[in-house]
């Protein structure tokens, strides 16, 4: 089924991240995200977006990584379901730190820290 295909793409993506091949990981997550959007599955769409963010981050594509991690946050807002937000805030802040924009990084870390205790 479509759903099985999506789950297997997510699994493959994670495997490639572990094997330090972020380019291949990106392709898998990209496809997983596409299917999740067709199926209207926000939970798996967030996982794919998060994987895409991580894949870009590992390739030093920081702006793109921020875009994908932010997608997690916007799905959360739309669905009123906050799984993964803490990690997304942290990851976005990490990217801004690497970009040298410490001011923006600090703002995202503040949201990250706020959520650490209650998550």
């Amino acid at each position: 089924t479509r759903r099985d295909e999506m789950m297997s793409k997510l699994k493959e993506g994670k495997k490639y991240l572990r094997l330090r091949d972020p380019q291949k990981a990106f392709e898998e997550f990209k496809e997983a995200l596409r299917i999740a959007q067709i199926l209207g599955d926000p939970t798996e769409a967030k996982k794919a977006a998060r994987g895409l963010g991580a894949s870009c981050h590992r390739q030093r594509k920081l702006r793109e990584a921020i875009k994908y991690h932010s997608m997690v946050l916007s799905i959360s807002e739309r669905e009123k379901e906050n799984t993964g937000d803490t990690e997304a805030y942290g990851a976005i802040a990490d990217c801004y730190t690497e970009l040298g924009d410490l001011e923006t990084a600090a703002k995202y870390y503040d949201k990250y820290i706020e959520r650490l205790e209650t998550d």
Partner: protein
Amino acid sequence: LETVPTIKKLRAYAERIRIAELEKCLSKMGDDISKKNRKLVDDLSRGIVNKLLHGPMQHLRCDGSDSRTLSETLENMHALERMFSLES
């Protein structure tokens, strides 16, 4: 703002430990665990790390409005960098 890179390094340090322990645990479990429980184990590892980091992270952030808080924040930063070998 000087403490921002330390927040990043401390996060990465803790995440390395979390992932290593989690993978050790899951590999020992093999296929002998349901998907739901695998998720709960992941949540557990995040919960412990996040709650332990909360205090130190909070004390790395201060608005810098008064100097006492700022100098304390920097002391916290130096202590954390020493204790977790974060200098680099």
